[in-house]
């Protein structure tokens, strides 16, 4: 009987099954005619007619039944043809037949497992032509649903396949220079694995790889893109323009100077956009984890990754907001865990740069996290202050920014947190006395002279607030003391300017900002609590509770003048200290929407 011609086939399924098996066995012997026809069928991709599709499906089904006859060395071209097929190129019939074939292949022989899993993981992302054709979202769910269910089915039959899958998913993660859509789709699938049936087995890898990728992108964004400004306005003013909507009530001529504009200008960079999308994806995933009650376990893995990757990265810009958002979802557990972990690293850590980094994170976190209860902030502050106190207790030595950098970092952190939270703490009598017992003035007045080493803008603001609140147990500014930049404060933090790291400064990624905003303390909130005359405790709380920060109202202009240098400096990471602080005053305070409750 001659070799049947594929195009003229009119067999029953079982007959075809027999022929296919025969073809495979013959190919091993050297007779490859029918085998080659089979391979040719697998290669058909473009413009398939209904008959072509039917043929392809039937052949795949026949192969599914004959997998035990497939030999990895003799049937290389067939295997290659099947594994090269992409689910994205076909309709659901072929997709189903293909996934069944893959499952069957993986279950039949250990040698095939790796190849099949690799093929499925490559299908997380469509071929590049897909994006140009603008297919609908239904295609995406058709493919990915099948890919993920096949992975689970294979895991049921081959229990050790998740071990291989974990390694594959990690290795095939796209590079940062790949376009945005493929990376986002790949991460989507990774997070789907994390929350799926194999979550326990591959989930922690997925989260760690994700954090690593976020940091990789973060590092690609240069700091100079954020801080560089070529106009006269001080960059600190940006934060004062926190409005409810993105474009409400903007004064058109000043549009360029707003934070919104800076976001836009900044976000045109590729890496920033990718980072933005990935972080939003992560936020959504965290939200789902919270709703299904898994957030704490996920957070513990993120924290581990944070300790190893984010904390040790040089001045991470935005990736840390993943932790911020997770904490905002569950302040009691995650919020506290994060603060404790940072405090532990500062107090007990070994590596000085990482300790400084940890306390900078802690200070920025305690200052900016609206969702943290004030008593917790006070307790965390106490831990930092205790350490500083013990450090300088029996030390009589003189000022030395390099030798005592961890101590100075702790002092600066204390002052920074108090700049944001002093009023709130003083409003509660219990916390006021707790603050008093911390004996901060002893530390700040110590011969090591932290007030001369720490950033002048922070010291200035801190002392100004002490005076404003008439706090007797905190240091006073002496008449002739003027905390302009001293040689010591420039040295502080070394060449890398560790002393100028405020990790939770307002995020410049536009989409992420929407998620962070409701849980964030803007400087203007703090400032407005001072602007209002006769502020009661309720007003203080109100100022912080406002959804968005308030801009300076017009009528306050004359009073505000006196405070401007300090206020502005507190809002955001100051520019490089090659400019003198207290430089140009803003020529005008921009008006904006009227305040709600004034």
């Amino acid at each position, binding site marked *: 009987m001659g070799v049947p011609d594929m195009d003229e086939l009119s067999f029953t399924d079982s007959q075809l099954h027999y022929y296919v098996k025969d073809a495979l066995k013959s190919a091993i012997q050297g007779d490859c005619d029918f085998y080659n026809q089979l391979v040719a069928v697998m290669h058909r991709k473009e413009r398939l007619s209904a008959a072509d599709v039917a043929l392809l499906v039937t052949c795949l089904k026949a192969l599914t*039944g004959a997998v*035990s006859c497939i030999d990895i060395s003799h049937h290389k071209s067939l295997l290659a043809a099947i594994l090269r097929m992409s689910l994205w190129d076909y309709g659901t019939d072929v997709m189903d037949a293909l996934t069944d074939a893959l499952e069957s292949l993986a279950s039949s022989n250990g040698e095939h497992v790796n190849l099949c899993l690799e093929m499925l993981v490559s299908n997380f992302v469509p071929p590049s032509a897909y994006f140009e054709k603008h297919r609908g979202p239904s295609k995406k769910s058709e493919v990915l649903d099948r890919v993920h269910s096949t992975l689970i089915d294979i895991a049921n039959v081959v229990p050790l396949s998740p071990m291989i899958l974990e390694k594959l998913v990690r290795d095939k993660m796209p590079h940062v220079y790949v376009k945005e859509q493929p990376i986002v789709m790949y991460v989507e699938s990774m997070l789907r694995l994390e929350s799926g049936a194999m979550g326990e087995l591959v989930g922690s890898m997925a989260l760690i790889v994700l954090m690593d990728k976020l940091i990789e992108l973060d590092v690609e964004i240069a700091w100079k893109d954020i801080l560089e400004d070529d106009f006269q306005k001080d960059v600190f003013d940006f934060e004062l323009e926190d409005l409810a909507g993105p474009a409400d009530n903007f004064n058109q001529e000043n549009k360029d100077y707003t934070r919104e504009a800076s976001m836009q200008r900044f976000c045109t960079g590729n890496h920033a956009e990718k980072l933005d999308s990935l972080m939003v994806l992560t936020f959504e995933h965290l939200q789902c984890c919270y709703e299904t009650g898994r957030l704490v376990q996920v957070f513990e893995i993120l924290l581990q990754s944070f300790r190893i990757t984010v904390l040790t990265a040089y001045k991470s810009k935005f990736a840390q907001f993943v932790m911020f958002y997770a904490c905002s979802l569950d302040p009691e557990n995650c919020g506290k865990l994060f603060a404790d972990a940072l405090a532990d690293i500062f107090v007990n850590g070994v590596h000085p740069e990482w300790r400084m980094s940890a306390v900078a994170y802690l200070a920025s976190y305690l200052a900016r996290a609206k969702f943290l209860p004030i008593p917790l902030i006070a307790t965390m502050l106490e831990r930092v202050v205790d350490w500083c106190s013990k450090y300088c207790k029996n030390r009589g030595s003189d000022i030395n920014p390099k030798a005592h950098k961890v101590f100075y970092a702790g002092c600066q952190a204390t002052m920074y947190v108090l700049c944001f939270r002093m009023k709130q703490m003083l409003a509660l009598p219990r916390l006021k006395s707790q603050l008093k017992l911390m004996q901060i003035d002893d530390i700040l007045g110590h011969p090591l002279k932290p007030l001369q080493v720490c950033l002048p803008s922070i010291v200035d603001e801190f002392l100004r607030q002490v005076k404003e609140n008439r706090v007797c147990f905190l240091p006073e500014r002496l008449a002739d003391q003027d905390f302009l930049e001293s040689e010591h404060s420039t040295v502080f933090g070394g060449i890398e300017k560790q002393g100028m790291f405020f990790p939770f400064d307002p995020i410049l990624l536009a989409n992420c900002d929407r998620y962070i905003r409701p849980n964030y303390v803007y400087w203007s909130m703090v400032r407005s609590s001072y602007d209002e005359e006769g502020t009661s405790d309720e007003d203080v709380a109100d100022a912080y509770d406002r959804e968005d920060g308030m801009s300076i109202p017009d009528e306050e202009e004359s009073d505000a003048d006196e405070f401007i240098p300090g206020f502005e400096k507190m809002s955001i990471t100051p520019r490089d200290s090659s400019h003198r602080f207290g430089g140009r005053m803003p020529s005008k305070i921009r008006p904006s929407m009227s305040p709600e409750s004034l």
Partner: protein
Amino acid sequence: MAGLEECEANLIVYLHPSKENCARDAILSELSTLLFTYNETVGGVVLAYDPSILSNLAKIVPGTFPCFGVQLKAKLLLFNPKPDMVLEGEVVKLTPNSIHAVVLGFSSAVIADDDIRDEFKYKIKGGEEVYVSRTHRKHKIKVGTIVRFSMKSFDEEILHISGSLLAPHIGGVRWLDKNLEEWSRADSTATKRNTGDRKLENYTLTTYETSVKSDEQIEKSKKKRRQHT
């Protein structure tokens, strides 16, 4: 079940100096990297370990960075199936051309249709896939039941077993355990004697004493074991 062995190994675990404070945890962590992989040295897949540390003293070994080597004795549970051994596994998938089972919860076993004796027929009964024996209708192999099969080959890399149901007296365990006696009596005694002898010859459960001191010794002991089987 055949293929499971216990052995005692003298091991040296090399630890990084940073693990000095939590040596026990580090040792357990090192030993856990052995799990579910085929280990040539001990000759099997390590399924479980039970270490007992011999002393608190460790030798510092110089190198790129100095490690310290902790000596310990460990009892290891090994899985080392040989061809024609009879194994059991839980059926996870049935297709017209194959039976898929999982052995000991980690090893995937497949029995291809060529290796399933003609006695068994694939059917779909009440929406459920099942292999039914033509001669004994109650002898069924279903998803979720235990199947007893003989091993053809074992892929050491992916720990994949290829099995066969050709020999008599293997199949669905539930039915076999109930009916084996009757079945054996019903069969001719000659056939029974032959297959029985063959089985006894090929495998026995043995306990090995493996001293792991140097690579050469390991090679020697492995060769010796191979000669015995």
